[in-house]
């Protein structure tokens, strides 16, 4: 009886060992990272004629995924849903070029800043002479909140739009007299409208002088640390410089 029991125990141990050894040989399936992009936001993220994601943030996202050796897939959304999607963990990383604010930092994790953003007043008239102007802003952006706060004092009518290209359309179609735009969108606007008498001047507000960083799911601190290490790596090995030169004539970080 005793011999039988020992035999069973031995077989069970052998089975467990063989099972664990077999599983140890199997390569663990790498996790696929979900990267969130801002819809229709050239030159940072948009779709080309073939429907593929292109832009500075897309290239940067791919570089980071390569650096941390994880496959990634992109999703796009509008500005109003960005923080909610990241904070709820529906996506892992927000490649949105979000300006770091204390309010946002309470909801999501931010990596070390990787570039600096400016906010421009784009109009035919200087900001100081813009009373009763209709001012277009992207809905949910910090520019939107800033415009709302200052509209009463300046006498503006705030015109929220859903995506950056609508800023250009609102100026071109006369639905707005001015736009308050982040630097990347300002470049696109001025590319199209600089010859139509529009002028862009940076708004010197401390609120807009915060740097831009990558937002991360707040439950994934380890991923944030990995991204910081990857950012440091691509900053020093020249890869970030190469995508900088691809999209901008000046250094943006």
């Amino acid at each position, binding site marked *: 009886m005793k011999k039988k029991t020992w035999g069973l125990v031995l077989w069970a141990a052998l089975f467990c060992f063989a099972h664990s050894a077999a599983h140890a040989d199997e390569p663990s399936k790498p996790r696929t990272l979900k990267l969130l992009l801002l819809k229709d936001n050239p030159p940072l993220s948009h779709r080309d004629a073939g429907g593929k994601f292109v832009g500075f943030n897309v290239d940067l996202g791919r570089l980071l995924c390569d650096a941390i050796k994880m496959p990634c897939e992109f999703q796009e959304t509008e500005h109003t849903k960005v923080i909610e999607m990241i904070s709820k963990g529906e996506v892992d990383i927000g490649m949105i070029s979000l300006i770091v604010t204390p309010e946002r930092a309470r909801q999501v994790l931010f990596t070390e800043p990787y570039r600096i953003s*400016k906010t421009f007043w784009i109009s035919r008239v200087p900001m100081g002479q813009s009373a009763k102007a209709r001012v277009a802003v992207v809905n949910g952006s910090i520019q939107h909140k800033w415009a709302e706060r200052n509209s009463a004092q300046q006498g503006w009518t705030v015109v929220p739009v859903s995506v950056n290209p609508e800023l250009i359309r609102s100026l071109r179609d006369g639905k707005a007299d001015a736009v308050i735009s982040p630097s990347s969108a300002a470049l696109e606007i*001025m590319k199209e409208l600089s*010859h139509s008498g529009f002028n862009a001047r940076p708004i010197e507000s401390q609120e807009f002088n915060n740097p831009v960083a990558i937002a991360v799911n707040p439950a994934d601190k380890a991923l944030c640390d990995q991204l910081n290490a990857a950012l440091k790596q691509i900053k020093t090995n020249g890869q970030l410089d190469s995508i900088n030169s691809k999209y901008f004539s000046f250094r943006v970080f």
Partner: protein
Amino acid sequence: MRHRKWHGLWLAYLSAGFCVLVFTVLSTGILGLQQRILGLTNETREVLVPQFLEQIRAVRNLEMLAHYGGLAAKAEDSAVRQEAAFLAAFAAANPGNLSDEQTRQLASSAYQLIQSIAARERDPAEWAAMEKALSSRADQVAVSIGQVVTQRATNIRDDSLTVRNLAIALAVLFALSMGMMLVLGRFLMVRIKVKSELFNEASHDFRQRLHGLQLLINTAKRSRAARDGGNVLSSFEATTNDLQRYLENLLEIARLDAVAIRPLIRKVVLQEVFQRLELQFQDAASHHGVDIKFRHTRLWCMTDENMLLRILENLIANAMKFARSRVLVAARLRGDQVEVCVIDNGPGMPEFNRRSLYKAFVQGGGAAQQAGLGFGLGLSIVMRLAGLLSAPVNIGTKEGHGSMVRVRFDRPSDVPPG
């Protein structure tokens, strides 16, 4: 003369101490410098390289500012001028330009001037001075990168050279120390050789004279004149015999300590050894009134037969001296080893004496009080011989309950018993 001899030895000690001190100082210095080099290289990778890259980006943006300023100053088309001013805002806002206050202020002033010139609020001719200042600052930043790199490379090279020099000094000192040790070793060997020769000659002379004395005593005992003083002569003979045994033991210890003896290991059949010892100790046992028994054995072991004999001779002689009535010699198999035991029913030894038993001239507690029972050299010889044979010795004793000495010898299983 004695003073001079000690002077030489102290000099050797001092030299060795000095070498150890210098070795320690040099090694600590090398380790410290290597740590510094490691720190410098790590700092170069972690801090300086990102700093260099940032400065390079600042230089590029200063050049872009100069370019946009030139456009704003020269372009007739106001749209071109406004676009140049717009792009200048980006070049002036780069974090690289924030790396030092002077560059940041210059970039900011340049941007303000570009804005004013683009709006034709200021004279475009003013741009030339600003362009010069931008170029000059770009040159300074670029050159400063080179200077920092050169300084860092110089620091690392200097430290590396010092490490190399220290390593050479360490190697030279090591060679010198080895040379000194060789010379000292040679010197000591010569002195030991001279001493051994002197000792051999002295012991030979001493033995000869002692032998002569024993012959004289024998002759005196046989002569008629000695009949009256026979007891005195017998005591004199016993004392002389003791002195001879003492001398033999002492000389053996001296020989074991001074000369490098190599045991001749071969297969030894224990029963043959026991038979020889039984014959050897028959008379002594009856003289001491002790019943000595050798338990029959078929065991064998791998050892030096002569040394085994000397070990057992000493142990049996010791046991016989202290035994009340019985001494037993036996062999037992213990795994891959053979254990040879010598057991007596003597007074045993107190606990405190056990450790000191291995030293020469030390006896067990009961023995010390018994005059004429040896000189405490037997166990000392046993320990030295057992040490040469790598045979562990174990002494089991309890005051009033006798003693048991066990010596273990190898008995490898791959040697055929036949």
